[in-house]
């Protein structure tokens, strides 16, 4: 039997109206832009707007005072002290945290698989909440029952025992030590990732060239890590300038503002001092300082990168 197949007539292709070239990228970007606008741009602009008001945050909208709060900020010794403390925190973050993290990363990298458990132990402080860590640190520093002072007394070093968090001379240092302890693992992981991408061939080539392990580290591995170091420095600066939680739990910025940071000062101004307008001025100033210093650090490190 012979069968014939009747082909249906070809359907005309449906055509969508041609969309402008920018439409698809714009649609993809829209969710991110919307999120940024709602959670970043709006609060930021709102904060700047509030900084122009004299308002306690309660009741009716405050009184417009122009740049009054900003002028006050420029002459506020507490703000400058807080900014100075932030600068110390940033400096010690870079000087202590990064070299320590790098040293740990190099040692762990060298130990390879054998160091798996050590990596987990070192990483623990970062997994703990800052509040829990703050409470723990407060107990460690307790002048009467804290293990630090008890240990010093046991070692007959009573002269070195202090009221670590209660004495203005030691409070900032004590807080910075805990901040370093908390953040070293983060930078350690960052450097470990950088070291993991280091080509083994380069080490071998340098070994054949007669380089010692020390020379290989300084002259081959460290330059390889410069991008990671740059990122770490930036993160350390930005993180230090915005730091809040651990310090607030441990000292609340005290004693006598000895460990006051911009963020703790801003928090207390708004929520304890009920000065929403001035607190917003501090918050806006923090944003400007962080942006300015981060941009400066980025620029400097780029220049450094092009030079090496």
């Amino acid at each position, binding site marked *: 039997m012979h069968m014939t197949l009747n082909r249906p007539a070809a359907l005309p292709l449906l055509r969508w109206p041609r969309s402008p070239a920018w439409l698809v990228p714009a649609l993809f970007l829209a969710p991110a832009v919307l999120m940024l606008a709602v959670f970043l741009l709006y609060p930021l602009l709102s904060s700047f707007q509030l900084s122009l008001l004299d308002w306690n945050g309660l009741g009716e909208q405050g009184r417009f005072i122009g740049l009054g709060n900003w002028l006050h900020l420029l002459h506020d010794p507490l703000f400058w002290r807080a900014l100075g403390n932030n600068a110390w925190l940033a400096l010690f973050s870079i000087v202590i945290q990064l070299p320590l993290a790098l040293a740990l990363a190099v040692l762990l990298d060298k130990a390879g698989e054998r160091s798996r458990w050590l990596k987990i132990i070192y990483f623990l402080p970062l997994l703990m909440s800052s509040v829990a860590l703050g409470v723990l640190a407060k107990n460690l520093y307790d002048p009467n029952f804290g293990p630090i002072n008890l240990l010093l007394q046991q070692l007959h070093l009573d002269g070195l025992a202090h009221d670590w968090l209660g004495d203005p001379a030691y409070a900032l240092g004590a807080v910075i030590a805990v901040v370093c302890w908390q953040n070293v693992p983060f930078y350690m992981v960052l450097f470990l990732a950088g070291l993991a991408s280091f*080509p083994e061939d380069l080490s*071998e*080539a340098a*070994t*054949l060239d*007669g380089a010692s392990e020390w020379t290989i580290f300084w002259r081959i591995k460290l*330059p390889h890590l410069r991008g990671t170091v740059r990122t770490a420095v930036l993160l350390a600066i930005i993180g230090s300038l915005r730091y809040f939680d651990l310090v607030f739990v441990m000292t609340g910025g005290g004693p006598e503002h000895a460990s006051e940071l911009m963020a703790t000062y801003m928090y207390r101004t708004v929520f304890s001092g009920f000065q929403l307008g001035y607190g917003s001025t501090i918050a806006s100033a923090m944003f400007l300082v962080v942006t300015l210093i981060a941009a400066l650090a980025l620029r400097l490190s780029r220049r450094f990168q092009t030079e*090496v």
Partner: protein
Amino acid sequence: MASVTLKGIKKSYTKDVTVIKGVDLQIKDGEFVVFVGPSGCGKSTLLRMIAGLEDITEGELMIGDALANDVHASKRGIAMVFQSYALYPHMSVYDNMAFSLKLAGADKAEIDKRVQRAAEILQITHLLERKPKALSGGQRQRVAIGRAIVREPQVFLFDEPLSNLDASLRLNMRVELSKLHADLKTTMIYVTHDQVEAMTLADRIVVFNAGVVQQVGSPLEMYENPANLFVAGFLGSPKMNLLEAQLVGVENGLAVVRLPKGITVRAAVDASRATAGSKVTLGVRPEHIQLATEGDVGIPARVDLVEHLGDIVLAYVEIPGVNDILAVKLPGHYTNLKRGDAVRLVFPETSALVFDEAGLAFKRTV
């Protein structure tokens, strides 16, 4: 310059994992020796053991007259060129080449002299200020070689140095390496899995398989007289046709083997150590198979596929009853040959090889 002697060299990672299973080899002063073999055969590991980048589990390594087993890699008088080039990315070409000399405490004038000389040899003088990222693959390879040259080593080691280059550049670099060896006359040990590189560069080839040296010899010697089935199959492109057969006996000094369907083939080899009826393998290189002309007796076959490559024609043919497809390399004028054509194949007696049941070749008689 120095000779390199390996005596019973073994490499084990654990008690059960031995990757180099006892290598004995004498590499003469100024010789260009190529280690070749499939991936994972241990050729690179052996090179790294010579370099001092891997410990030697057992055996003796002599560089020149000195035992080098426990000598640090930097003190062995060797220089190595890596597959990845391993150039220091943050240093200029000049600094890459000068690095070893600076570490050795050479004075500035001496460093400059050696770097400039190596750069001239490799024609990279204009690249000395550039960083590796600003170089092409071929230029990076030259810098890697330059870095080795400035050290004026006794032995050069090359670990698959051309693998990352494209085909035409690889050809150029092969020629350059040959010239370099002719100029420097330094002992060179070169690892590759590419048999063409091995055939074209080497004074002698060492074929490896599974951590064991299969055969050592000059390229042509290895090609013409492979010691076993592995070497026969490894060298040559397309590879040698290997057909299962049965030894009928020896007739007028020729081994007579029988393929399935009663097809007999004669080969000029000494098969006297094998017994008639034993299993053997017949080996014929694609370029040795001829198409029978009228009047010739030949083995009937059918063409399965034809590849016209211009200068040659590659035909893949099937002999009835024989499982394997045979590759036949014919002169380029066979332009009319097409799939499905019936042909008759001739295996010249003097070209055919026969391997015994253990895979070892019978010696040629001509």
